[in-house]
């Protein structure tokens, strides 16, 4: 008999397993990409780890047992270790995925053409862009799903941030997510990454961008053969430069609050843990938290940035009482005067450059005991805003609020 206790135990185990997949500390931007890919892999592994079902409707085909790519492939029977009753539909794209943009449509066309050339079914079911406005690169993705709505092929292209790409073999290997050296092909270096019995992944590192192709076995669809996937990657490679350039420029053009992410990301070793954005009648709100981890991942210093638009009479005013305390020191951070409040190793900076918005930054001691100079230095690294960027942050106030035309600080006068 299934009981409530069984259910709580079972779902507790599920949560624990999923959390165990979370990396504690991504060491670099490249690592972040690798973690993302591994997360996809492991999520799919969880999905297909359950029992079996002999599928008949196959979307992807492959030539079983051959080591030479050659034309349309034979169907590889679905393995009998998946249970459709346990199989959970995979999710759609990220929450801010923008479907069928011009770039996504162009990518879809290129993917369809390459699939056709490789003898693979070319019925792409969706394509979308995921913009990364706080980075310089974006990504574009084309997806093939089976008739149950499970992803069986994901073709993802990420643009590089300026200066990110390197020809260094070890960098390329890390970017390719492989423990083995890559194979040079005409347009870049090809890596086989995260191969599992139920997943087949290829990563192509090119100067134009990072192409990740991942095939996933479902109860209905078996994996395509390696040679067919290599053929697909080679066919798609020439399109990477054109599309990746557009992806990156799209991301730049649509960047809201472009200054916000500069927090910490320009400081080596800092890691973002949390970000929030809200827009409501009480004004806009943006927050982002970063920390500098120790080798073991423990917080050395924690930084929290809050930007809040405040309409007249907002309840949020009451929460700002501490800014009117008298025990502050005025410090100048890149030309913007702030009130700095100190409390046993923690520091709160407050900028209020208009009646309608407030920017606060907290520098909290962890393993490192932060000094006032160190806190100010961190704040200077964080608040790296030119006047236009600063103004953009202050526009979080409701649209009928007046924002001063120039960010001259008068916090001491308020």
């Amino acid at each position, binding site marked *: 008999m299934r009981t*409530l206790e069984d259910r*709580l135990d079972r779902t507790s185990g599920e*949560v*624990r397993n999923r*959390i165990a997949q979370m990396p504690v500390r991504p060491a670099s931007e490249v690592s*972040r990409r690798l*973690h993302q890919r591994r997360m996809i892999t*492991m999520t799919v592994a969880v999905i297909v780890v359950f029992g079996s079902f002999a599928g008949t409707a196959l979307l992807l085909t492959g030539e079983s047992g051959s080591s030479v790519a050659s034309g349309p492939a034979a169907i590889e029977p679905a393995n009998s270790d998946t249970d459709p009753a346990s199989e959970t539909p995979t999710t759609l794209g990220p929450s801010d995925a923008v479907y069928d943009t011009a770039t996504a449509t162009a990518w879809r066309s290129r993917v369809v053409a390459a699939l056709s050339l490789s003898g693979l079914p070319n019925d792409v079911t969706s394509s979308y862009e995921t913009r990364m406005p706080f980075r310089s690169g974006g990504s574009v993705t084309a997806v093939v799903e089976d008739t149950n709505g499970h992803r069986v092929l994901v073709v993802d292209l990420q643009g590089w941030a300026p200066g990110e790409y390197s020809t260094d073999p070890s960098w390329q290997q890390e970017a390719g997510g492989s423990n083995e050296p890559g194979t040079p092909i005409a347009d870049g270096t090809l890596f086989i990454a995260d191969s599992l019995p139920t997943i087949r992944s290829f990563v192509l590192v090119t100067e134009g961008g990072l192409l990740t192709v991942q095939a996933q076995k479902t109860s209905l669809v078996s994996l395509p053969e390696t040679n067919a996937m290599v053929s697909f990657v080679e066919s798609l490679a020439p399109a990477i430069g054109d599309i990746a350039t557009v992806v990156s420029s799209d991301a730049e053009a649509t960047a809201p609050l472009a200054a916000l992410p500069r927090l910490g990301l320009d400081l080596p070793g800092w890691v973002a843990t949390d970000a929030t*954005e809200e827009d409501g009648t009480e004004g806009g709100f*943006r927050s982002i938290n970063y920390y500098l981890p120790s080798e073991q991942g423990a917080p050395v210093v924690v930084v929290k940035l809050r930007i809040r638009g405040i309409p007249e009479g907002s309840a949020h005013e009451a929460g700002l009482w501490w800014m009117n305390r008298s025990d502050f020191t005025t410090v100048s951070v890149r030309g913007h005067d702030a009130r700095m409040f100190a409390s046993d190793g923690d520091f709160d900076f407050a900028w209020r450059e208009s009646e309608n918005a407030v920017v606060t930054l907290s520098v909290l001691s962890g393993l490192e005991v932060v000094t006032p100079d160190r806190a100010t230095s961190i704040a200077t690294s964080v608040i790296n805003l030119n006047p236009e960027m600063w103004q953009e942050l202050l526009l979080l106030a409701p649209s009928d609020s007046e924002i001063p035309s120039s960010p001259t600080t008068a916090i001491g006068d308020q």
Partner: protein
Amino acid sequence: MTVHEETVATPASAFRPSFEAFYGRELQSVIGLAYVLSGSRSGAEDLAQEAFLAALKQWNDIGTYDDPGGWVRRVVANKAVSGFRRRAAEARALARLGRTDFNVPDLTPEAVATWEAVRRLPKRQAQVVALRYFDGQPAADIARILDCSEATVKTHLQRAKHALAKKLGEEIDHEDT
């Protein structure tokens, strides 16, 4: 007191190695506890980090406790149920940041429904269920963590299980306490 309501004390460098070992050992289970109680993926990590930071600042004392993990769990259990209003917003913001690496991978519908039902319980009941089933704590330890009696823990647990059984359409195993 800062705006973050951190408990204040200067960290002692002599205690850092043991704190880091403690942090490494407990982090994932504390994040998990924060997650099941708050339903907030990245917020859970932030919440856990705040609790560990608070522990670090009193590590001279907390580091000598028999169970410093219980102290951190109490902080997290209390903060997690005090309200995260930002779940959708945080997911959107993180996606804009291209930050998916700290997200808990998607759960099965059964797990989502189960822990949503737990979060809808009264605060104390939700804490007891999470500590008992997610964290595997016996009633006596839950009582220490939540600073209440063991009998109170058992009462909360029974009430919670009856409410969850009704909500989720499951039977209760009366031998499981």
